[in-house]
C-alpha cells in the first residue's frame, strides 16, 4: 500500500517535471540560464502587464515549444483516457481509441480539407466532423442491427473504418503528388510541429467536457466491465451509460486527432502500463491513464523534435517504441487482465 501511494505521487508529479524539462529540449540551442531568465522575466511581465521587446529565445520558448508541450499533454491524455474507457466498455483490453473508425473518419476529413481548401482551420474542422460522423455511423449500425451487446459496435467500427480507409486511398490517388500528397501522408503519420495556441483552445474544449464526464463515470465502468447481464442485475442502465461513454470517448479522440493527425499505440499501450502499475480498478486507473498518457506523449514528442535534424512524425515513434514495449509487457505477463 505504501509502495502504491509512492507510485501514484510519482505519476501525478511526472508531467510537471517533464514540462520544465521539455522547455530546455530542442534543435535550437538555448542556454539553461537564459531559459530560466526568460521564464522569470516573462512571468513578471505577464503579472504586471508590461510589454517587453521579444527576443528569439522568447519566441522559441513561448510560441514554438510551449504550445507544443501543452498540445502533447492534451493529445496524450485524450487518447489514453479514450482508450482506457473503450477497453472497459467493450470488455476487451486490446481495444484502441480508433475502434469505432474515428481514426479513418478523421483522416478522411483531413485529407479532404488538404485537397479542397488548404486552410489549417478547415482541415482540423473537417477532421473533427468526419471523426464524429464515423462514430455516428458505427453507433447507428450497431443500434439497428439485431445483435445485442458491445460486439456489434466493434464490428460496425471495423466496417465504417474500412470504408473511410478506402476513401482516404481515393483522395490520395487523385491528390497532386508534388504538393498535396506529401501533406496528406505527413498528416496521417501524426505530428505536433505546426500547433499554435488557437489549436489548443480548440482541443481543450471538447477534451475538458469529454474527460470530465468519463472521469465522473469511472467507477461505473468497473461495473460495466463485468458484462451486460451482471451490470444489469446490479441495476445499471447499460444501454444509456454505454452510449454516453462511447460518445465522450469519441469526442475526445476526434478532437485529439484533428490537431495531431493519427497517432497510434498511445491509447492502447498507456492504459496497459497504467493497469500494470495500479491495477484494474477504474477509480484509480482512469486518472492515472490520463496523466501517464500526457507524460508519455510529451516524452515522445521531445524525441520527435530532437533525435534527427528533421522532425520525425509522432505516429512512427509511438509505433516504433510502443510496439516493442507492448511485446515486453506481454512477456512479463503482468498485464493486469489475465
Amino acid at each position, binding site marked *: 500500500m505504501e509502495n502504491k501511494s509512492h507510485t501514484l505521487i510519482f505519476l501525478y508529479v511526472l508531467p510537471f517535471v517533464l514540462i520544465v524539462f521539455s522547455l530546455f529540449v530542442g534543435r535550437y540551442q538555448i542556454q539553461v540560464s537564459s531559459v530560466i531568465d526568460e521564464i522569470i522575466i516573462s512571468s513578471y511581465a505577464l503579472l504586471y502587464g508590461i510589454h517587453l521587446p521579444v527576443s528569439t529565445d522568447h519566441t522559441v520558448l513561448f510560441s514554438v515549444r510551449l504550445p507544443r508541450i501543452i498540445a502533447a499533454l492534451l493529445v496524450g491524455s485524450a487518447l489514453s483516457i479514450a482508450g482506457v474507457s473503450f477497453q*472497459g466498455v467493450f*470488455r*476487451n*483490453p486490446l481495444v484502441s481509441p480508433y475502434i469505432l473508425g474515428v481514426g479513418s473518419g478523421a483522416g478522411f476529413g483531413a485529407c479532404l480539407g488538404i485537397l479542397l481548401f488548404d486552410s489549417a482551420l478547415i482541415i482540423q474542422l473537417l477532421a473533427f466532423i468526419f471523426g464524429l460522423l464515423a462514430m455516428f455511423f458505427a453507433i447507428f449500425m450497431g443500434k439497428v442491427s439485431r445483435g445485442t451487446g458491445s460486439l456489434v459496435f466493434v464490428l460496425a467500427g471495423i466496417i465504417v473504418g474500412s470504408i473511410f480507409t478506402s476513401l482516404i486511398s481515393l483522395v490520395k490517388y487523385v491528390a497532386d503528388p508534388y504538393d498535396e500528397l506529401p501533406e496528406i501522408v505527413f498528416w496521417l503519420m501524426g505530428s505536433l510541429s505546426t500547433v499554435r495556441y488557437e489549436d489548443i483552445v480548440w482541443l481543450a474544449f471538447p477534451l475538458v467536457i469529454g474527460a470530465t464526464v468519463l472521469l*465522473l*463515470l*469511472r*467507477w*461505473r465502468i*468497473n*461495473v460495466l*466491465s*463485468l*458484462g451486460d*447481464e*451482471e451490470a*444489469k*442485475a*446490479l*441495476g*445499471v*442502465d447499460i444501454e444509456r*451509460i454505454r452510449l454516453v461513454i462511447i460518445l465522450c470517448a469519441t469526442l475526445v479522440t476526434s478532437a485529439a486527432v484533428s490537431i495531431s493527425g493519427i497517432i497510434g499505440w498511445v491509447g492502447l499501450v498507456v492504459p496497459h502500463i497504467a*493497469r500494470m502499475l495500479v*491495477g*484494474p*480498478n477504474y*477509480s484509480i486507473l482512469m486518472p492515472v491513464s490520463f496523466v501517464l498518457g500526457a507524460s508519455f506523449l510529451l516524452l515522445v514528442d521531445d524525441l520527435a523534435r530532437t533525435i534527427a535534424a528533421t522532425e520525425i512524425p509522432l505516429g512512427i515513434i509511438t509505433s516504433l517504441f510502443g510496439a516493442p514495449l507492448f511485446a515486453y509487457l506481454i512477456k512479463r505477463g503482468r498485464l*493486469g*487482465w*489475465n
Partner: protein
Amino acid sequence: MELILEVKSLSFSYGNGNIFEDVFFSLERGKVICILGPNGAGKSTLIKCIAGIFKPSGGSVCILGNDTSLMSNGEIARCIGYVPQQNDTIFPFRVLDFVVMGRTPHLSMFSSPQQEDIRIARESLKMVGISELEDKVTSNLSGGQLQLVLIARALTQKPSLLLLDEPTSHLDFGNQVKVLEIVRKLAVSGMSIMMNTHMPDHALLVGDNAAVLSCNRMMLVGNVIDVVTTKNMSSVYGTNVVVREIEDMARKVCIPGSELPLYK
C-alpha cells in the same frame, strides 16, 4: 408470513416459441425454494426474468408487492440480488473492490463507494466467511472461493431476495456443502432464496419448498418433501431415482435407483 416474491403466469420467449409459460409460485420471508428440472428446461432463463435481466413476454413478477415491470433496473437491484452461475470478468479486480460493486444500485450515477459502502462489503465477506480473501485478486481464486465472492457481492446489494443460479455446479464436494451451509445460514437470518439446482438432494438439504420446471411449465410446486419423491423425480429425469429416509440421520436422500451396468 410476509410474501417476498410472487410470480404469476410468467412466460418468456426469445421470439420463436415460449421457453416456459404460465409459471406460478411464491416465496415467503426466510424461505428457500429450489427449482429443479432437466437441462434446457429454462431454469436460468426463469431466474434472469425475475432478476430483471430478461423481459418476460407475459405474466408478472412482484417483489415485496411491487410489479418489477414498473421498476427501474436500479430499483429491482435494491430488492433482488442475482448470483450468476459463472463469472467471466476480464479484469482481475481485488476481491473487496469486486464485492463493493454490489453497492451500485444504492449509488448515484456519478458517485463512487464511500467508507460506509466498503463497510457493508466487508460485512458481506464476513457473512460468507471469506474475510481473509479481501486483498486477493479474483482471477487467482478457486471456483468455490469465486462462488462465495459472488454471493458476497449480491449480499452487498442488501436485497430481500437472493437468486442463485446453480451455485454448486462447478464445485467440488466440500465446496458444494459449504455453499449449501451458507444458503441455510442466510435463510435463518431472514433472507429469501431462490436457487436452481441439478441435485434433488440439495433441495432436500436446504429447501423449504421445491418446484420442477419441465416441458415449458412449472410441473410441480410445493413442500420439498412432497415434490422430491421417488415417483416425481423418476418421471422428471426420465430415469430410476430413489428417495429414501436415512434413519440415523433423520433426513431423506435422493440417489440414482437403478444398478449402473458395470463393464469389467
